[in-house]
């Protein structure tokens, strides 16, 4: 198992200019890349001898819109229509026993990125999930359908602007003899407010 710094050097050598930034936190290496470079960089990481990340452990969508703000309420964000989305890839090399995290921040106006299904078939469902929950469009995905939400669901629920209680609720209507959808009847409430306290707060 190579140290994180050695790995970081090897990754920088293999990927070159495609890496916009890299950081080591908690003994874990993170690199930032542009959304256009994702196919090339991940292919390099998978195929370069010495790196050989054979496994794609996870693809995670992140909405950075309210990052670092006290408020959980989406109104506080200046421009709630174009969320600051990112996709985060976690790779694992079984032969060399190391991990890497690759983050690509997407264009807020068109959250699109190339699919990596051709590199790892497991990406299929991970990308469908990110599409479903965040509305990230993966180009080249063979079957980009919703995965987790209900049939006919509208919206992308894990974006920060989507309320925790959703927009519609469902119940069985006895008269109509079927399930009906209605606007939610519960008031949104916050039990514990979100606060950010700086280091050394309160002595």
């Amino acid at each position, binding site marked *: 198992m190579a140290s994180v710094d050695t790995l970081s050097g090897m990754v920088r050598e293999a990927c070159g200019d495609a890496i916009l930034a890299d950081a080591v936190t*908690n003994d874990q290496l993170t690199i930032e890349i542009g959304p256009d470079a994702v196919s090339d960089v991940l292919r390099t990481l998978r195929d370069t001898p010495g790196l050989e990340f054979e496994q794609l452990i996870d693809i995670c969508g992140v909405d950075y819109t309210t990052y*670092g703000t006290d408020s959980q309420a989406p109104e506080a964000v200046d421009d709630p229509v174009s969320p600051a989305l990112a996709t985060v890839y976690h790779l694992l090399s079984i032969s060399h*026993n190391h991990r890497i995290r690759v983050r690509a921040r997407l264009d807020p106006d068109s959250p699109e990125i190339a699919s990596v299904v051709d590199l790892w078939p497991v990406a299929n469902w991970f990308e469908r999930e990110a599409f479903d929950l965040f509305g990230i469009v993966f180009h080249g995905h063979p079957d980009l359908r919703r995965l987790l939400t209900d049939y006919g669901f509208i919206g992308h629920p894990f974006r920060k602007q989507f309320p925790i209680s959703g927009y519609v609720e469902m119940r069985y209507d006895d008269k109509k003899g079927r399930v009906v959808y209605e606007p939610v009847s519960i008031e949104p409430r916050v039990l514990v407010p979100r606060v950010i306290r700086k280091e050394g707060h309160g002595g």
Partner: protein
Amino acid sequence: MAEIRNYTMNFGPQHPAAHGVLRIVMEMDGEVIERCDPHIGLLHRATEKLAETKPFSQSIGYMDRLDYVSMMCQEHAYVRAIEKLLGIEAPERAQYIRVMFDEITRILNHLLWIGAHALDVGAMTVFLYAFREREDLMDTYEAVSGARMHATYYRPGGVYRDLPDRMPQYQPSKWHDEKETRERNKNRQGSLLDFIEAFVERFPSCIDDYEQLLTDNRIWKQRLVDIGIVTAERAQALGFTGPMLRGSGVAWDLRKKQPYAVYDRMDFDIPIGTNGDCYDRYLVRMEELRQSVRIIKQCIEWLRNNSGPVILENYKVVAPHREDMKQDMESLIHHFKLFTEGYCVPEGETYSAVEAPKGEFGIYMISDGANKPYRVKIRAPGFAHLSALDEMSRGHMLADMVAIIGTQDIVFGEIDR
């Protein structure tokens, strides 16, 4: 005129062999599966989004409810992510307790798996046997945490409390009189460690019982051998972890390769398969049961000989004792602060993975310095496994689908999250 033979069949979402709420739309050619499309999400509860709206510690209970048969392993990944971001480490005794309960959890999970898998394939008895042993293990959960399944026992900085000196006792009732109750309480007179030790002494012979029923059973082998074969390369590309990957012959186990807690001090082996079929995965999991027993024995040995704190005394993160709270102003303030606001975790991100019974269970946590996580992503092993269901079942018969679902050890709590 062309003869149309393919037809589409719906499996589930309510089907006893679907292990929960799985709906599969299958394209069949006669009785052969041409293609299958699992529809998941019927148990989606948006756990990740809920975790974003709660202080860090309040989401530990949600982790139990993901894969509801390997509860504590998931708590372990979650509290370890918080601990990493806070830069704290649980005391040694707590680490041993965690390892012991991780392995108890592994046995719990594999017992459910063997019971359900055998039941799906047509063997009834194993299920009854497996649940008899599960009962004892759930009693150990109850003894430490008060809950039989959803324990919320692991906390950032340690575990909730030390192992009890006395097991909970059965009380006489309308159905069990005094004499019967004495009999039932016979093996719970000692401490929890005595109870667990008695269990691990007895348990290997129980595994022999299951193996006697299944391993050389003609029907069992006909149903599992050469079903759902996955090669080692393909298993890696498909994101398999845990017994699914080891069944294909890849010796990969996070407990050995990237040890966490005190697994580096434990002596155990990693079983691997050779063919990558359902039968090999069965053998791998059976051997894992025996290895878990070995690990638990080592933990019991250490826990008997060493005492110490089980949780940090860092009152910025860990709540002070309730008794102190009644008389000590400082403790009262800490208590109030922790339960009204929680603690702020420094800005940063981390991925913490554990070897859960089903495979690599990971928590990717981003904190922006607030008292709630900014984003929690749960990496569930079953999600990757189920996404390969299409590939694994192609060309097999309909009845084999049930065996493949069984071997994948599907639990919907973690797949749908």
